């Protein structure tokens, strides 16, 4: 994590390069997005390797440079979300991770509902839709994708059952996601056509073994308190839900993250010393207390940047008559990445999964090229 301003982000020169440095203003343009009061500038950055060749500065991307500079620092990690800094990487790659996390990391979600009974006020389709969006606690890595012609088996389908009824004369009840019951043995519903006498009842799945045997942990739902429906007296819901593996691109229910995003590291620079009442005013202006006051002794006060990371970019400090004394910047290759998992996998696993998917994609490109 860079401590202060531009200093820490000195260009580490490759051995064969001369000690050439860009002038400050160009260096800012190259490595920072400047957020002016009216609009951000230099958002694009310089992609071309020879942009600064005339000044003897190499702008190319090299693996060594990347390996040397790239850094990940985890700031927060809980069961459901994490925040980490990803330093020294291009926006396009950081964005690739974000996009993969949202759309391409698979999870399990309920896809098929076999409705036996639904006398609640919620229509079957809406109820099914609600069930589909419930995050399941089932590791997608243990399952296969199911294609249209596949028979649902223990390797590609998880079966849940929901059977609730509200007895007549009682109070209205709320059906929560905790009522979803995992059926490790597969579907319990028999197909409509009566099976031939003798052999096992034909159900909607054909499990060859119980899922209990292949899985270490029992499956369930991640959150127990999601409201599915409300039942009035005399109403009942009975259904079987089949969850399959899928990706968020197809439907948001398979997205493993509530959302995943990043922001570039804020950098607040005081261009001219702000002292006295102006400093007080500046400190007061910022809603997230980015600035602080440094005591200069004998009553003198100077504004300093204390917590630039907290800046939400409200642009209050760059507005007004003294606005030009402060500059808001974003560090172009430092991303504060946040992953909010929906619960199927812990966030750190999700990220490694995303990396794996990107790797796979790259490999596919390479193999196609060779």
């Amino acid at each position: 994590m860079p401590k202060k301003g531009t200093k820490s982000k000195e260009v580490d020169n490759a051995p064969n390069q001369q000690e050439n440095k860009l002038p400050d203003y160009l260096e800012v343009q190259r490595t920072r997005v400047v957020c002016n009061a009216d609009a951000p500038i230099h958002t694009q950055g310089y992609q071309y390797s020879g942009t600064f060749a005339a000044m003897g500065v190499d702008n190319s991307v090299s693996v060594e440079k990347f390996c040397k500079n790239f850094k990940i620092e985890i700031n927060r990690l809980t069961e459901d979300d994490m925040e980490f800094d990803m330093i020294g990487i291009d926006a396009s790659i950081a964005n690739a991770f974000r996009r993969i996390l949202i759309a391409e990391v698979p999870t399990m979600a309920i896809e098929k509902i076999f409705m036996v009974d639904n006398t609640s006020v919620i229509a079957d389709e809406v109820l099914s839709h609600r069930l589909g969006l419930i995050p399941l606690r089932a590791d997608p890595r243990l399952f296969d994708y199911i294609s249209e012609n596949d028979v649902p088996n223990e390797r590609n389908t998880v079966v849940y059952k929901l059977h609730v009824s509200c007895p007549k004369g009682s109070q209205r009840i709320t059906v929560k996601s905790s009522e979803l019951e995992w059926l490790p043995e597969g579907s319990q519903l028999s197909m409509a056509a009566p099976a031939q006498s003798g052999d096992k009842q034909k159900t909607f799945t054909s499990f060859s073994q119980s899922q209990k045997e292949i899985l270490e942990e029992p499956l369930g739902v991640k959150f127990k308190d999601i409201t599915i429906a409300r039942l009035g007296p005399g109403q009942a819901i009975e259904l079987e839900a089949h969850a399959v593996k899928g990706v968020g691109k197809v439907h948001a229910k398979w997205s493993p993250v509530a959302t995943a995003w990043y922001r570039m590291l804020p950098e607040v620079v005081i261009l001219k010393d702000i002292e006295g009442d102006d400093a007080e005013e500046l400190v007061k202006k910022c809603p997230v207390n980015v600035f602080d006051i440094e005591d200069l002794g004998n009553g003198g006060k100077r504004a300093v940047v204390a917590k630039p990371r907290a800046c939400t970019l409200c642009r209050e400090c760059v507005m007004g008559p003294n606005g030009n004394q402060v500059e808001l910047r974003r560090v172009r290759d430092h991303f504060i990445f946040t992953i909010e998992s929906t619960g199927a996998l812990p966030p750190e696993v999700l990220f490694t999964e995303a990396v794996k998917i990107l790797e796979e994609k790259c490999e596919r490109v390479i193999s196609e090229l060779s």
Partner: protein
Amino acid sequence: MAVLAKGDNEGGKVVDTMPLPTYHSLAAPVRKPVDKFALLPAFLKVRGLVKEHIDSFNYFIDKGIKKIVEANNRIEARNDPSIYLRYLDVRVGMPSIYENCNVESITPHLCRLTDRTYSAPIEVDIQYTVGKQHVVKRRNKFIIGYMPIMLRSSACILNEMDEDELAKYGECPLDPGGYFVVKGTEKVILIQEQLSKNRIIVDTDSKGRVIASVTSSTHAIKSKTVVLMDKGKIYLQLNQFTKPIPIIVVMKAMGMESDQEAVQMVGRDPRYGDLLFPSIQECASERIYTRQQALQYMDEKVMYPGATNNKEGRSNSILHDVFIAHVPVKDGNLRPKCIYTAVMLRRMLDAILNSDTFDDKDYVGNKRFELSGQLISLLFEDLFKTMNSQAVERMNKNSDKTRSSPLDFSQLIMQDTITFGLERAISTGNWDIKRFRMHRKGVSQVLSRLSYMATLGYMTRITPQFEKTRKTSGPRALQPSQWGMLCPCDTPEGEACGLTKNLALLSHITTDQEEGPLIDLCHSLGVEDLLFLSSEEIHAPGSFLVMLNGLILGKHKDPQRLVIHLRNLRRSNVIGEFVSIFINEKQRCVHIASDGGRVCRPLIIADMGISRIDETHMTKLRDGTYDFDDFLSGGLIEYLDVNEENNALIALYEHMDQDDVERSSITHIEIEPLSILGVVSGLIPYPHHNQSPRNTYQCAMGKQAMGNIAYNQLFRADSLLYLLVYAQRPLLTTKTIELVGYDKLGAGQNATVAVMGYSGYDIEDAIVMNKSSLDRGFGRCIALKKYTVLKDNYVDGVSDRIVKPQRDKDGVLMKQNMRALDDDGIVAPGQIIRNHDIYVNKQTPMNTSKGIGRPLTDSCYKDSPAIYKGVDGETTVVDRVMLCSDTNDKLSIKCIIRHTRRPEVGDKFSSRHGQKGVCGTIIQQEDFPFSERGICPDLIMNPHGFPSRMTIGKMIELLGGKAGVSCGRFHYGSAFGEPSGNADNVADISSTLIKHGFSYNGKDFLYSGILGQPLEAYIFMGPIYYQKLKHMVLDKMHARASGPRVLLTRQPTEGRSRDGGLRLGEMERDCLIAYGASMLIFERLMLSSDPYQVQVCRKCGLLGYYNHKLKTSYCSMCKNGENMAKMRLPYACKLLFQELHAMNVVPRLKLTEV
């Protein structure tokens, strides 16, 4: 008061415009502004949203019907008046039906579901003679018919029920009532706008002549009297006369033989005399000096002379009965009519001398609004009289024929006349009452249940008197007098623009009130009866005429005192709260009105600019110890109608200084400025920041928005119902929204909107939607459609039958499309039903005309299944199946089929600011921009939507919504609400935004979802309430290759419902001609449409035919087949030739070789 002009008070004491501060005025406590908002809910609690409908119907049920029956309470046989029937009393009972010899009470919801009429018996107590001896008998609770009952009226079972009870009856507590249920459909009798009756209106006619007209309307007769000035002379025009009659002749005919007296009556001002002189001269030149001569002169001009004793005396009776018919003639004394005519003349002459005194027909004070009670009462009066005359007719016929014991009347009264008459009128909307010469169409309309707002909008709608085709602009323009009475925004676009209006939130329409006590009161307050005054004294200086409901009551020497007294009496509840007392300085008249149909609104009374309501009253109101009626009876609030408003000086706020208006002259204070808007426009946030037409557009669109319709929406059986799955309450609300319950029955969702360009699929107001939002349920809606199948009964007990799906011996269905059927032959609820599936497996007997006596076998039936027509590839589900017997005892099967739809490209959405747009494209979430906090918009709107629309309100809504979600408080945006705190200030909103780390202007720093880099601009982003409108692509999408053709012309059918072709019209044809694409025209217009081969005789040019046996062509005209040629024609062309033949026109074809 009306005299407000500055420096006008000469003679009187000169009032200091700036009173010097005194000790008292400085020591007086500074009054804090009182929060009067609580009055609005209190008003609506007492009066309700549709109280005018209910009040008017209640008035009819309680009083009106009694008056009608009382006025016609005796019927007797023509040839024996001692056989009679007398109505002693009449009541409307509780809603019930008479079925299978017993009376069953019914509920409105039952009627909706079973196609019945929600009606109650009209019970009368009668006294009648029986038998030869004319024994007088009495019978109570004799039913003469059934009256459809307005929901929530005093006769309705729902009256004064609380929420729980309503729920028990399947009613929605938010449903306002005020409509009828007739044959299962909900019908509203719209408020009808009319010119006020019995009032003098001075105007110019189409030829530019000055006219004074009165439309008189009494129980007995309706007439229109016109006095006009043509070429300097004044005439009377009446339909009964062939020609206009000089007015002086009319005066003479009424006994005003002295010209001097006539002039005196009009007024002593010499200018009046000058204007009247030509008329007097004309009269003299006709040599009419006496009453007799005048009547004779008039007799000759009578339009339809009666058959008997030719024209003699006709004009006299016209003067008595038709001429200004509402002025009563007592003992043949025509003097009141003379005075009235003189007043009319005076008003007319005033208008000529001073064009300011013309009346404005569009002025709301000159309008009356007819409500359902009045309309039904007219209908009932007519039907009641018809029923009675029919009974008399039957009695006469009976006694003519048989001389046996006469029947009694009670057996001759038929219930059907009234029952069916009322039912028919309300269900068709045609008010055809010959007796009152009333022929109106579209009086009642089906209550739209598209959304809650549509329903409320219907209840407050006012339909115009004019035909809509007229191109006039005057009646369409916004009238200043509409302020607070009629909504300035809510009017449709197009032909009815400005004519169809809506009531404002706090307005009320009066019902009739008794005149008798008012007259007595006026007299005791010093009103002098004109009959005791000489003509000279009528217009004595300083005295004003006193008019009550258009009748001249007398004159008063100190009008201001009279007015103050009367108003004080009204404030202390001695006279009705809706009586209006209006002093018109220009006309030198005091108008007192107690008639029905005036709009009025409550205002806070202020004494010398100081509101009578203070904090103590409001605390009491909030505590519940006070209600709105207490404010009325306590003299704190009063109702003012449009006329009386002219005597008032109304301040918006008490605590604010109005620039050049003196504080002490303020007489009233507005309750809340947001009440100038109506119910529908009240849901727009910050409407006062929008360009005005945008609010009007939103009013039209709010009614098409999908959402929740009523609490009982899932138990209703409307033929089409659109519901939003996850309807939300708007984040940025208004006070009106909370008052009308829109927050409970919302029609939209709070979408996070980013205002930016994206992808090029957002041109022309299209919006770009986030696919993940749609996946998560944004904009998802349910369409419920009702399909009804009738099981018909035929003669001899033969009827249709419903059979279970036929299966072969393995139990497999015979036909695939029977898969949705249950074993009883009707679809099972919950079943998925696809296009072409059968939903009722019905069979009809082959022979329906006559039964064969023995039971029918299977072979006697043919299949006539009801087949579902849906969209291929869409899954629809049977929601419910309801069986009931309709009024003709046929089994009706109602299948309600549900279709859940997610938004797709082309579906229409709109914000609450008249900004509609279709969904242009749907894009993955990862491609969407995201903010620093990870927020991803639900939809993207193009910024080009703003500059030309100028909907600043939408921007403030976004800001307010954003502040709302970050601080957790619903923000308000009520109309004109900033000063009173009913709308949040932009400055406050901005500071809230800053406090939560947003930019004050609502613009966020966004990253591109595609590139990962920041966007090169800050993006205006935040929540806006979006409505999904009922126009969906799925219902409109249509294309066809080849398909059905019309039988007659063999051209492709028209319209989506018939799978029709797309027409290549005239203009398209013109394009092709201009381009020169002749072969394309040929193909489009003939080959792809209706090509037909004909045989043409080259000799006679007529069409021949082809003989298939002989394989030759033949001309039946030339009787040979020699000159035949083959050619192709459009079939429609051939048809035209043949039709022309049939009309004796011979079209001949001349053929040449190409």
